[in-house]
C-alpha cells in the first residue's frame, strides 16, 4: 500500500467519524423534542406527559356515554412554589364523580404582591395510570396566567373522566404545581392538550 493510499484511507475514516460526532451532538439536542415522544413510547414520564396525558386517549371517550353506577373520588390540590407570591387553592377539595360526565370546578387565585406576576400551573394526576383518562376540556393550566397586583380571580377547570378508566382505580388526585414565569424564552409550548 502506498503512502497516498493510506492517507486517503485515513481521511475517509476521519470524515465518517467526524460526522458521527456531530450527529451525536445533534442527537443530544434532538432529544429535547424527541423526549416526549420517547417518553410516550417507553412510558418514562415527563412533565408534558404527566400534564397532558397520552395523545391517543382523549375525546373518543365521549362516545361511550355516562356510567351512572360507578363513582370515583377526585381530590384537588395545588402547591405554590415559594417564589410565586400567590395564594392558590381549589374551592372544592374533593368531588365524587361519574365517568363520562362533565364537571366544572374552580380554583381561587390571589396575587399577594403589589405587582403583576405571571404563573404557570403544571398538572399531575395520581395514580399516573389515570393520567390519560382524565380529560381536561378547559383548564387554566393550558395557558400562563397573569394576575395584576392584589388581584383575585377564580379559575375554572372543566373535566371529564373517561369511562375506560381502569376498574381498580376509584380515587384520583389532581395536583397542580404553580411556578413563577421569569424567563423570556420558552422552549416548548405548553399550550397544548
Amino acid at each position, binding site marked *: 500500500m502506498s503512502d497516498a493510499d493510506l492517507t486517503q484511507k485515513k481521511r475517509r475514516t476521519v470524515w465518517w467519524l467526524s460526522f458521527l460526532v456531530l450527529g451525536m451532538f445533534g442527537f443530544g439536542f434532538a432529544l429535547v423534542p424527541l423526549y416526549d415522544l420517547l417518553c410516550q413510547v417507553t412510558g418514562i414520564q415527563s412533565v408534558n406527559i*404527566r400534564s397532558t396525558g397520552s395523545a391517543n386517549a382523549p375525546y373518543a371517550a365521549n362516545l361511550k356515554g355516562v356510567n351512572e353506577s360507578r363513582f370515583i373520588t377526585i381530590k384537588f390540590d395545588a402547591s405554590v*412554589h415559594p*417564589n410565586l407570591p400567590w395564594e392558590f387553592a381549589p374551592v372544592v377539595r374533593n368531588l365524587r364523580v361519574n365517568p363520562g360526565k362533565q364537571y366544572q370546578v374552580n380554583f381561587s387565585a390571589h396575587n399577594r404582591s403589589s405587582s403583576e406576576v405571571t404563573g404557570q400551573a403544571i398538572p399531575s394526576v395520581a395514580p399516573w395510570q389515570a393520567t390519560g383518562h382524565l380529560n381536561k376540556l378547559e383548564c387554566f393550566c393550558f395557558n400562563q396566567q397573569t394576575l395584576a397586583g392584589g388581584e383575585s380571580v377564580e379559575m375554572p377547570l372543566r373535566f371529564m373522566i373517561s369511562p375506560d378508566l381502569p376498574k381498580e382505580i376509584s380515587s384520583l388526585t389532581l*395536583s397542580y*404545581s404553580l411556578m413563577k414565569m421569569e424567563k423570556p424564552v420558552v422552549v416548548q409550548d405548553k399550550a397544548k392538550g
Partner: protein
Amino acid sequence: MCRRLTTISRRFLLVAAIVSFQTAHAEYGINFPPPAADVAQEIYDIHMLTMQIATFLLLIVFSFVIYSLYFHRKSRGYPADQNFHNTWFGNWSWVMVPALVLGIDLTIASNADTVLKKVWEVPKGEKLMDVKVTGHQWWWEFDYLDYGIKVESRYIPEEKSGDLYLREVDNRLVLPTGTKIRFLHTSADVLHAFWVPELAFKKDAIPGYVTETWSELNREGVFRGQCAELCGTWHSRMPLVVESVPPEKFDAWVKQQQAIKVAAAEEASSSKAWSKNELITKGKELYETKCGACHQASGMGLPPAFPALNGSAIVNGPVADHLKIVINGKSGTAMQAWGSLNDLEIAAIVTYERNAWDNKSGDVVQPTDVKQAR
C-alpha cells in the same frame, strides 16, 4: 436489639467477623431495619434473595480462583496446558457460561418482577389517604389533603436532640396503621428524595412533577430516615421521622392539629398591636426554626452562600427593603420567598432580626406594616 443483630448476622455470612466489632449504639445496623409494611417486607425478602444468590456465586468464583492459584503455579511445577482453550470445553464455554448466567438472571428477574408490580400497583378502594410530601431547602412539608392539615418538619440542632441528632425532627409525619396511604411527592425548589428505610421505598421530589408512592403500615413505631438526593448545602439536615400510630390516636391528633391551625389563624388576623418583647420572643423562635439553617442562630450566616444578618446592611437599613427581601426572596440566590408566612410571623421575624445580636435598631414591625408591604 441484640436478637435482631444476631439474626441478621447469621444471614449475612460475610460479615460475621465484623459484627463482633460493633458494640456501642443501640440503633446500630448492618442490614435494613425491620420493614413496617407488607410490601416493604417483600422488598426486604427480594433483597435477601439477591444477596444470597450473589454470595453463593461469589463463593463459587472465589473457590475456583483460589484452587487455581494454589495448584496451577509454576513454583509447584505445574505445566501450562497450552491447548486448554481448544478442548470441547474451550470451544463451547461461550454458550454454556451465558446460558448458566441467563438462568440465574431469570431467577432474579422473575422474582423481582412480582414484587415490582406490587410496589408500582395502584392501591384499590376509595378510602385512600393522600399525603403530599413537599421537599424544601432544607425541610419537609407534609400536607394531609383529606384533613386540610399542614405540617412543617425540620431537623433539631444537636444541643437539643443529642443522640438523635439528624434523625429527629420538630414535627413528625404522623400516620395511622392499617390505612392505605398515597404519598404525593413534589418539590418547591431543587431535587430531594423521600427515604424512610422501614417503608422500603425512595422517591425523588422533582419540581413540576407530582409522583406517587403508597404504603400501608402494619405496625406502630417511630421510623427514621433522611433526604436521599443531594439538595445543596444542608442536604444532611433533612431527617424524616414517621410516627406510626393506631387510627384512633391518629384521629385525635388530626383534631388537635386542626384546632392549632384555627387558633393560629385567629391570632394572626387579630388587629392587636404587639409589643416589642412579644414580637421578639415569637420572632426568635420562628427565626431559629425557619431562618437559622442558613443564617445561623448566631446571625453570622455562612458566607458567601448565606450572608450574615448580624450587622447586615439590609437588616440595619430601611424596614421596607428588609420586608421586601423576606417576602419576595432574592432570585439567583438561595434566599427563598417567605411570603407564604402570615403577617404576624413575618413581623415577628423582622422585628427579631432588627434587634438581635449587634443589631440595635429598636424598630418594631407590626403585622399591619407587613400587610402594606406585600
